[in-house]
């Protein structure tokens, strides 16, 4: 079954075709949304919104890119817009809660659960850039475009985000933020 045929049927309002498209891409969509917003309930809401928007806008999807690529882009934009609307703008220097390591943090065993928890605890601005770059593999140009910031800002945010992530996973002991010996 080609995706073009599914899309054609979905555009005509065939619910079965819509569900088939949903089934093929729902995992990726929910994942990127959940990672970006850092919260289960918000992710459920945003993921639904993204799909509803996608089916409403399906007529404008011309098929130059694969549906999955288009849908991924739409999901990322929906998540970023929601965070913006809710007043949680990407902060450049966020006063986040002080970094503390999870109780079972062990640098040798970087479990997915610990990593996910640390991602959730990052300030929104940091998490968004880190997820888009290091998890989703987007370029700084793409990230800058989506966030409406300069490429240099995207880069510096990423470096801060990585540092904060490390602080959460392994609190600095022998080093401090100024980079001096303890």
């Amino acid at each position, binding site marked *: *079954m*080609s995706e*073009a*045929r*599914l899309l*054609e*049927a979905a555009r*005509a*309002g*065939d*619910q*079965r*075709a*819509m*569900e*088939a498209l*949903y*089934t*093929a*891409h*729902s*995992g*990726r969509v*929910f*994942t990127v949304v959940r*990672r970006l917003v850092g919260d289960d309930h918000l992710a*459920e809401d945003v*993921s*639904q919104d993204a*799909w*509803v928007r996608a*089916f409403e806008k399906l007529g404008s999807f011309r098929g130059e890119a694969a549906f999955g690529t288009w849908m991924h882009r739409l999901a990322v934009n929906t998540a970023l817009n929601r965070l913006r609307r809710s007043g949680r703008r990407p902060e450049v220097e966020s006063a986040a809660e002080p970094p503390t390591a999870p109780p079972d943090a062990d*640098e040798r065993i*970087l479990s*997915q659960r610990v*990593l996910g928890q640390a*991602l959730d605890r990052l300030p929104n601005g940091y998490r968004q850039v*880190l997820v888009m770059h*290091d*998890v989703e*593999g987007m370029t700084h140009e793409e990230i800058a475009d989506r966030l409406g910031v300069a490429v240099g800002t995207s*880069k510096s945010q*990423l*470096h*801060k*985000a*990585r*540092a904060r*992530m*490390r*602080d959460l*996973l*392994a609190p*600095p002991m022998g*080093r401090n*933020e*100024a*980079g*001096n*010996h303890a």
Partner: protein
Amino acid sequence: MPDHLSREQIAALLDEPEATGVDREHLDGCSECTLEYEQMIRTRMALSALPDLEPPVDEWERIRARLGDDVSPIGRRVSAPNSTRFRPLWAAAVVALFAAGLGVGRQLSPTEDAAPDTTASRSASDDRTEAYLRTVAQIQELRREGPSGEAVLDDPSLAAERLMRLDALIEASQEALRTAPTDPVLNNLLFDVVDERQSLAGQMNRSLRYTSVEY
């Protein structure tokens, strides 16, 4: 020895392995900063390898409800036993259904889909699309039928029935995928069913263990 690099400085070097300069020089000569650099690489690799998450089980139903009347009604429902007792015939019906989907999959090759859109071939491909969509919709429907959710966990016989249904779906979908191995819809269906089965079996094992402790 000058001050160590901050984590932010080390993070910047991560993207520029060929960089030269004071920071790079320090990194190359400092075992402590090199250790932090390696940990950061490890974190980055772990981030890029994070697995996909599962959307909520009722997500599609919610989306469908929000789309409301803009969508056409679902295809014919497949009748499944209303009784909570599992009937072996149900498994056979699922296998037959996937076998039908298998035939459809064979017909719907990418080359055929790319064929010129004459009136005749257009009509034939519409028929095949319809057959494929009906099959996929029926499979989705079968997965939703029967006992599921929290109720299953409270009743061992319901849990056992759900497990048998999932086993039948897994067996049949694997059969279908042998001929249409790259179909993303079938692949994701199989993935979801296997995931649900693993989770359910795990929960059943745990409750069995708790039960046995009582004896």
